[in-house]
C-alpha cells in the first residue's frame, strides 16, 4: 500500500470512517430504539396501575411486593399483588429499586442513580410507606438485600470491582445497618472468622447474601481459597463461624430450622453450576429441591413449606416456586418480576 499517493490514502481513510461511523451509529440507534420500546406495555403482560403500596400488615391477606420488570411506564418500580393472586393486577408504588426486601415494616431498596457518564448506587432504608428514612452510598453493583424479621436490621451486598487480589477480579462487600440507631457495619470482612473451629485470616475473604435469624444472629456466604461456606454471624461479638461447605446465598426458613441455598453441584457446566438445596441446621442433611434448573438467586420462603425465587424470563426474570421438602414440582408464580418479599 506504500505505492498509494497520500491523497488516495486519506480518501480511503475518509470513506472508511464514514462507512464504519454509519455502522456504529446504526448499532447505537437500533439499541436505543429497542430500549425505547421498554416504555410501552406489551400485550399479554399483567396490568400495572399506580397506587399505594404499604409495608404494614394488610387488613386482609398477605401481599407480595417485588420489582416489576414488565415493559411499560412502571418498569423497575416496586409493585404489590395479593399473595394469593400473584399473577393478578399490580399496584405500582413509583419507587425504583434494583434489589429489594422487606420485613417488620422496614424496606431495603438498592437503587442506581444515573449520572452523566457513570451510574452510582445507594442503599435506601424505607419506612412502611416506602418513604426514604436514610440512604448509604455503596461502592458497586447491588446484588443481595435482606431485612431482619423485626425490621430492625437491614443488610446489603454489592459487587466491588478492583477491590481485589489479581487483575480485574471482582469482590463483594456486605454491610449491615441497625435502623434504630443507624449503627453501620460497613464491611463484614472485618469480623473475626472462626473456620473449622480455628481463627482464620486470609486476603481473599468475600462475604455475601446475609439472612437474619433475629436482631443479632444471621447467616451468610463466606468465600475463601476458591470454596464457599455457610457461616453463622454474631453482630455483638463481631464473629463469623463456618458451619457447612458449598453454600451460597442462604435463606433461613421462618421457623429458623432450615436454610435454602444455591449449591455448586459437581459435573454441571461452569456457567450454570447451581441447584437449589435445603439444609436442615439440626442434622446438617441436604435435600435437593425438585427445581432442576440453574438458580442464581437468594430464595424467599413463602411459608415454612415452599420457596420463591427468580429465573431468567422474557422480560428479565420470572418468579417460580417449589416445595422445600424435595417433593412436588417447580411452578411459575408470575412473569416479569424479581426481588420478592412477603408483607404481612
Amino acid at each position: 500500500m506504500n505505492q498509494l499517493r497520500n491523497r488516495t490514502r486519506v480518501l480511503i481513510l475518509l470513506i472508511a470512517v464514514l462507512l464504519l461511523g454509519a455502522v456504529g451509529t446504526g448499532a447505537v440507534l437500533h439499541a436505543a430504539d429497542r430500549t425505547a420500546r421498554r416504555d410501552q406495555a406489551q400485550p399479554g403482560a399483567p396490568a400495572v396501575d399506580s397506587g399505594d403500596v404499604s409495608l404494614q400488615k394488610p387488613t386482609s391477606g398477605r401481599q407480595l411486593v417485588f420489582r416489576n420488570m414488565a415493559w411499560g411506564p412502571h418498569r423497575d418500580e416496586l409493585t404489590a399483588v395479593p399473595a394469593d393472586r400473584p399473577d393478578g393486577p399490580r399496584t405500582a408504588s413509583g419507587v425504583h429499586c434494583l434489589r429489594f426486601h422487606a420485613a417488620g415494616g422496614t424496606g431495603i431498596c438498592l437503587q442506581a442513580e444515573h449520572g452523566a457518564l457513570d451510574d452510582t448506587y445507594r442503599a435506601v432504608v424505607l419506612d412502611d410507606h416506602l418513604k426514604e428514612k436514610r440512604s448509604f452510598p455503596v461502592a458497586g453493583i447491588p446484588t443481595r438485600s435482606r431485612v431482619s424479621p423485626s425490621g430492625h436490621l437491614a443488610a446489603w451486598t454489592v459487587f466491588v470491582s478492583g477491590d481485589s487480589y489479581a487483575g480485574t477480579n471482582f469482590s463483594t462487600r456486605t454491610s449491615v445497618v441497625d435502623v434504630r440507631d443507624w449503627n453501620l457495619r460497613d464491611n463484614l470482612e472485618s469480623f473475626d472468622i472462626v473456620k473449622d473451629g480455628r481463627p482464620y485470616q486470609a486476603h481473599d475473604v468475600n462475604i455475601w447474601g446475609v439472612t437474619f435469624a433475629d436482631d443479632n444472629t444471621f447467616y451468610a456466604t463466606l468465600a475463601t481459597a476458591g470454596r464457599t461456606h455457610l457461616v453463622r454471624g454474631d453482630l455483638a461479638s463481631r464473629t463469623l463461624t463456618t458451619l457447612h461447605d458449598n453454600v451460597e446465598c442462604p435463606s433461613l426458613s421462618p421457623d429458623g430450622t432450615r436454610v435454602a441455598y444455591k449449591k455448586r453441584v459437581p459435573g454441571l457446566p461452569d456457567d450454570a453450576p447451581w441447584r437449589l438445596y435445603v439444609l436442615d441446621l439440626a442434622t446438617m442433611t441436604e435435600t435437593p429441591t425438585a427445581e432442576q434448573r440453574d438458580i442464581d438467586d437468594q430464595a424467599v420462603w413463602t411459608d415454612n413449606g415452599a420457596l420463591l425465587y427468580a429465573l431468567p424470563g422474557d422480560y428479565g426474570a420470572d418468579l417460580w416456586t417449589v416445595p422445600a421438602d424435595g417433593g412436588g414440582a417447580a411452578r411459575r408464580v408470575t412473569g416479569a418480576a424479581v426481588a420478592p418479599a412477603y408483607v404481612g
Partner: protein
Amino acid sequence: MYVADSRRSKAPVAPATAPGHGPASPCQEADGGHGGRAALRAAVPGAVVALGAVSLVTDISSEMVSAVLPLYLLTGLGLSPLGFGLLDGLQNGFSALVRLAGGHLADRRGGDGAARHKAVAAVGYGLSALCKPLLLFAHTVPLIGAVIAVDRTGKGLRTAPRDAMISLATEPEHRGRAFGVHRAMDTAGALLGPLTAFLVLRLAGGPLLADGGERHGYDAVFTVSACIAALGVLVLLLFVPSRLGGDATSTSAPSLRDGLSLLRLPGLRRLTLCAVLLGLTTVSDSFLYLLVQRRLGLATDLFPLLPLGTAAAFLLLAVPLGALADRIGRRRLFTAGHAVLLLAYGLLLSPLHGLPATVCVLVLHGAFYAATDGVLAAAAADAVPAEQRGAGLALVGTGQALARFACSLLFGALWSAVGGTTALAWSAGALALCVLGAAAVLREPAREVSS
C-alpha cells in the same frame, strides 16, 4: 561490540534527514550539536505518529470492551465473577510469551528481503479487531474466555514489532521522546475508551445496569468497538511504512538461535536482568490502588478513579520524560523512574492521609510509568542490532511482564501472610536494593549502538 556513542557517530538516519534536505531548525535542541540538525519532524517521525494513532484508536476500542466486560458478565449474562481474575492473570502471562514469538517472526525476512514488522503487527491488530464482533455471538464463559484469549494473542503478537518499528523509524538520539509520544497517544486512547463505552451505553438508552438479560446496549458497545478497531488496522495499513530506517541493509535473516544468543549482548543482558529484578519488586497496580484506598483513607466510591489519576499523569509526563531520557540517558532515567516508585511506596507507608497524599502517590505512580515504560523500549533498542530489534525488544518486555506477574502472586501471598502494609514495606526494601543494584549495573559509559 561497542560502537561509538551515537551522539558522536553518524547513526543510521532515515532518508528524510539526508544532507541538504531542508534548513536546520532555528530552535536548536538543548543537547545541541548534531542532534539539532534533524528537524522536528525527524525527532518524531511520521511513522511514529502513525503508530501512535494506531495505538490510540486501538486502545479506545479495547478499553471500551474492558470497561464494560465486568458489568456485562455480571449483569448482562448473570454470571458469577469467581475465577475471572485468575483467568485474566493467566492470559496476561500467555500474552507475554506470545510477544516473544511476535518479536522473532517480525525480524524474519519477507520475499523482498525486508523485515516483516508491519505484517506481524497487522496480524496482531487484525486478530484483536476480529474479536470485537465475535463478542456479539459469544454468550457463555468458555466462549468469552476463548475470544479474550485470541484478543490477548493479538496484543502479544503486535507489541514487539510495533516498538521495533518505532525505534527503527527514529534517530537514536530521539528515541526516548519518540517512545514518549507513542505512549502518550496510547494512554490517551486508554482514557478515552471507557468514556466512549459509557457514552454509547447511555446513548443506547438503557441504564448501565441492564440486568435481566438485556444485552442490546452491550451489543452497541461491541459493534462500535469493532468499527474503531477496524479503523486502527486501516490506519496501520495505510500510513505506517513497510520499510524503516536501518532495516533494509541487512542480508541474513535471524534464526531462532540468533534470538537466544541475543542475551550474549552484554548491554541487553544487563538491561533484561535489571528489568526482571525491578519488575519483581514492582507491586501491581490493583494492589497499589487497594493500598492507596486503605492506607490513605480514601472513600471507596472514588476507587474507580485511581487508575485514571495514574493514566493522566502518565499521559502528561510521557513526552517530557522521554525527552529527558534522550538527554541524561535512558538507563539512568529507567532506574530513576523506579526510585520515583520507591517514593510513592514511602508516601504510602508514611502516616500521611487524605486527598493531597493520594494525588501525590498517583502523580508519582504515573511519573514512574512515564519514566520507565517507553524508556525501557528505547534503552533496549540501543542495545540490539536493527535486524533483531523485534526479538530483542520482546525479550526485555517479556522478562519484565513475567517478573511483574510473579510479583503479583508473591505479593498476594505475602499480603495474606503478614498484611498489606508489611508486604509493602518489604517490597519497598527490595525495590530500594534493586534500584541501587540497577544504578550500579546500568551506568552509561558509552551507549552501544549497532548499525
